[in-house]
């Protein structure tokens, strides 16, 4: 009888062993290619293949180019343009990279969700690894800080003191603003991680129900009703898969949108409210 092991799909194990690199002060870092790293590499290859075939630069776009341009327009026309404005144009590659990386890694967890086939675990969602989402969130956060300092110098700290506020209020407001700024990487990483792990765990639990209830149904008698439960669970898995596709896209969109919002804070620091 199958048992519920919803967390097994997130296990990281080595695929190709590479000797640990010893960094002074940090100790040995295991640089082996794990299934997580493999998923990232495949994801990057998919991005390169997808956008490489889209980047033809023809006047009349083919199918792939139209697809790539639709993605580009999503970033340029929906996120960067309205949220940052013309000053945001140099950051399109950054936002686009974040979006594509999150989108492809999310999607890989669903499209390749065939589980265990031929003794090999195929399903792996790199964005359900807190290490990955935290790295992505830190990249975004540090980019915002660095761009803020490069563009505004020490006026960057005006970000924590909203304009038009009487100074006694600032005593309370500044710590709140600083805290809300500092928890950004936490919320960014936790949102993506939580969405991915939550969706996959729920899907896994329902998929396990299908097998468990079907096995129960085989034992005959009143337990035959187990088939009904298995059917309902199977329908739930199908519905959840559809929902997870939406979530996978939405989380990529939202990650990119929040990166835009945070960049807008520092890029347009002197030209709006703060």
């Amino acid at each position, binding site marked *: 009888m199958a048992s519920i092991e919803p*967390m097994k799909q997130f296990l990281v194990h080595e695929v190709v062993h590479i000797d640990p690199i010893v960094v002074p002060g940090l100790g040995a870092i295991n640089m082996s290619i794990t299934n997580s790293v493999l998923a990232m590499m495949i994801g990057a290859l998919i991005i390169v293949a997808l956008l490489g075939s889209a980047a033809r630069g023809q006047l009349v776009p083919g199918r792939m180019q139209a697809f790539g341009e639709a993605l580009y327009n999503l970033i340029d026309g929906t996120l960067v343009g*309205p*949220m940052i404005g013309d000053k945001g144009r140099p950051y399109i590659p950054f936002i686009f990279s974040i979006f594509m990386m999150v989108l492809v890694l999310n999607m890989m967890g669903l499209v390749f969700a065939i589980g265990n086939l031929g003794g090999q675990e195929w399903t792996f969602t790199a964005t359900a690894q807190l290490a990955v989402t935290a790295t992505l969130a830190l990249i975004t956060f540090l980019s915002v800080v660095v761009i803020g300092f490069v563009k505004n110098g020490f006026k960057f700290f005006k970000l924590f003191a909203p304009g038009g506020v009487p100074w006694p209020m600032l005593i309370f407001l500044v710590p709140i603003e600083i805290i809300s700024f500092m928890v950004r990487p936490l*919320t960014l990483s936790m*949102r993506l991680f939580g969405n991915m*792990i939550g969706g996959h765990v729920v899907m896994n639990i329902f998929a396990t129900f299908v097998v468990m209830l079907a096995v129960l149904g085989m034992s005959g008698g009143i337990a035959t009703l187990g088939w009904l439960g298995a059917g309902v669970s199977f329908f739930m898995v199908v519905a959840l898969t559809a929902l997870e596709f939406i979530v996978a896209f*939405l989380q990529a969109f939202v990650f990119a*949108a*929040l990166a835009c919002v945070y960049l807008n804070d520092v890029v347009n620091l002197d030209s709006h409210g703060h």
Partner: protein
Amino acid sequence: MDLHSARMIGAGLATMGLIGAGVGLGVLFSGYLQGALRNPSAAPGAQPMLFLGLALTEALGIFALVMAFIILFV
């Protein structure tokens, strides 16, 4: 009560945070739909903000879910 059952109960209680996220999402989409049905021409412009609000609202519920997982499995 042993640790195992306490964990189960705690994880169950922690998922209650999702109630708030559910209510929040309902309020969010009802507001969007009311606005969109009254002025359909302005609806596309509000969509990025809708998804942003969805993410921010949902994130709080997801934190509760992550807490539940952490209580349950760590």
